[in-house]
């Protein structure tokens, strides 16, 4: 036997087509997802008169620009001509280049990082790219998945490969049992708060430990989704029986003899005992509490039992300047208990936290109560919506005064026009709290679905454990 290898190393080695002297590698891409955004890539291919090399290794999914209202009217329900154009343009580009396409009227439609796994398009050992930072979500299956820009999308379309330099590896070990009321979102916010938004820079993270192994696939996807918010290239979790049984029988999962062969390969992927990682970080599951962000980058996260930090107490000048600017933008004063922050609106959605399990956990908090501020839900996919409705979750939310919308990126980024009103304070299950992301001057507090549900009920940031 050779040297013990970590999982990322095994996946990397299998995908190197060629290597240049300075170590830059031509990396093969097994699947590339496109949405409405990187249309520049198709424009560029047309200019150069190039086809897509392997069109069936691409998939185009409309998610960023789809409205969450009037969807039964299809394209006719979209008033804004620019938004309609973005969706039609994706359909046209997919058709012209022979690329599989999931559009507004397809029952499979949803946010691409939700749909990919749902359809079995994401399989252990793959290299997956997409023009979106949260492509890292797919790492939950033991996949090297990462976001790329439009020019790189063009390169992948034309060549099915990408020039890339091998990142370093960081193992984050989370052992123990998560306390009640603590979700995967709290785990990843705690990780980012600990290592910072540049803590994973240049690294691929492997999440390991008993707390991670105990998570279901939806929870693992939430953790990997926000790897990018710690600056990491990607986040991976070793595939196991939980992953395999999730994939079995899905529309595009391998079948029959292929399934058996694939399974044997997938079982060889986890890191060997004693494998080396360039960095290691440990967290105890028992120490993690429900988290919420108070600032304008995801590392500005604290347990809900804390107070707004005081910049005067921070030695590092740059950090102090960041906190001052963040508090100014967020309209918060140092020392204010987080549970005293009133919110104007709640959003439950996005590829981070709008899978079935997320909606189930939120519904459990909402049941029999009423929202006191405007709250809306955009399920992660049309299929998630349908399943939630089959189980009556929609009724729980609607009875509590929530808006039950259709699936799209929605208020995570507002491409489709779903913005909070200027200056509003929004409790959101999405992955990013940047200035102006959810609308002009909008103040975003990131939290888990049950915490968002609790905030909708009380109208302020709330420790969901005190509601029970």
């Amino acid at each position, binding site marked *: 036997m050779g040297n013990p290898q970590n999982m990322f190393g095994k996946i990397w080695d299998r995908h190197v*087509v*060629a290597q*240049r002297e*300075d*170590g*830059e590698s*031509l990396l*093969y891409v097994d*699947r590339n997802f496109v949405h409405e*955004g*990187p249309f*520049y890539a198709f424009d560029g291919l047309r200019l*150069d008169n*190039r086809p897509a090399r*392997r069109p*069936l*290794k691409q998939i185009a999914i409309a998610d960023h*620009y789809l409205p969450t209202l009037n969807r039964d009217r299809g394209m006719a329900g979209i008033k804004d001509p*620019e*938004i309609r154009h*973005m969706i039609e343009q994706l359909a046209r580009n*997919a*058709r012209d280049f022979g*690329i*599989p396409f999931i559009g507004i009227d397809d029952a499979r439609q949803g946010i691409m990082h939700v749909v990919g796994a749902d359809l079995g398009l994401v399989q252990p050992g*793959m290299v997956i790219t997409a023009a*979106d*930072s949260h492509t890292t979500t797919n790492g939950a299956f033991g996949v090297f998945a990462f*976001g*790329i*820009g*439009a*020019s*790189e999308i063009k*390169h992948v379309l*034309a*060549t*099915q*490969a990408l*020039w890339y*330099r091998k990142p370093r590896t960081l193992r984050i070990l989370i052992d123990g049992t998560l306390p009640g009321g603590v979700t995967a979102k709290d785990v990843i916010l705690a990780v980012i708060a600990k290592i910072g*938004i*540049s803590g994973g*820079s240049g690294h691929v993270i492997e999440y390991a430990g008993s707390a991670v192994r105990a998570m279901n696939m939806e929870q693992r996807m939430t953790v990997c989704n926000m790897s*990018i918010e710690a600056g*990491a290239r990607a986040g991976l979790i070793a595939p196991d029986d939980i992953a395999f049984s999730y994939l079995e029988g899905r529309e*595009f999962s391998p079948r029959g003899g*292929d399934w058996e*062969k*694939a399974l044997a390969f997938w079982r060889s992927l986890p890191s060997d005992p004693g494998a080396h990682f360039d960095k290691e970080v440990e967290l105890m599951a028992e120490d993690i509490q429900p988290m919420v962000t108070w600032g304008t*980058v995801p590392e500005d996260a604290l347990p809900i039992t804390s107070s707004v930090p005081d910049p005067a107490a921070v030695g590092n000048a*740059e950090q102090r300047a*960041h906190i001052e600017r963040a508090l100014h933008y967020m309209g918060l004063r140092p020392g204010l208990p987080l549970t005293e922050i009133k919110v104007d609106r709640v959003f439950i959605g996005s590829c981070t936290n709008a899978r079935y399990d997320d909606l189930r956990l939120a519904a459990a908090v909402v049941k029999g109560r009423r929202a006191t501020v405007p709250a809306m839900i955009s399920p992660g996919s049309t299929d998630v919506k349908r399943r939630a409705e089959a189980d009556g979750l929609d009724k729980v939310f609607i009875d509590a005064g929530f808006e039950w919308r259709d699936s799209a990126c929605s208020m995570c*980024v507002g*491409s489709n026009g779903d913005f909070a009103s*200027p200056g509003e304070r929004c409790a959101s299950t999405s992955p990013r709290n*940047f*200035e*102006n992301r959810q609308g*002009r001057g909008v103040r975003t507090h990131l939290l888990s679905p049950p915490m968002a549900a609790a905030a909708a009920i009380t109208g302020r940031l709330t420790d969901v454990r005190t509601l029970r």
Partner: protein
Amino acid sequence: MESFVRLTAIAAPLDQPDIDTDMLIPQRFLRKPLTVGYRNFMFFNDRFDAEGKEKPDFILNREPYRSAKILVTGANFGCGSTREGAVYAVVDFGIRAIVASSFGAFYASNCYQNGLLPVVLLEETVAALRAQLHALPGVELTIDLPDQVVIDTKGRGHRFEIEPSRKERMLQGLDDIRITERYSGAMEEFESRLDAEMPWLSGKPLQALVRR
């Protein structure tokens, strides 16, 4: 793609760290065709007020920085999304190089694809450069790619690192696809082996999702 060799130009200091891609270009402009001129969207929320009028206190709205070709910025510049519009806007404004102690995960690679040079120097060095620029507004810096140095206002050179393959492409203004084509033999071999060993990765069942 325009090549980058040596540049002497006005440099604008931006002290703030963590300038993210939403700040560089708000999402709502990413549906515009490139032909409209993305320069008008760069730093939109910082540069313009709610009525669309320029905010006079924003540095790039002031002379002589309107004609800056270099930005010297805080750490983690361009963090956030993969949106390449955040590079298109900067390039269209006329910026050719950005000096920072670190860049967001996608920003630097998107820069290289568009002939915009991301230069990484130590945080102390970048802070000292910004101090020089604040002291002498409108002063020029020189960036020499063949020698890999930034020459400051006192004539001192600060060496930066760049991967040789990136450097070659920047110097010649070469597109990645052209380079990849040199490896077509290796690619054919790789793909036929993969198709034989793991046929389920070919994507054939997805043909059902292709529309005509």
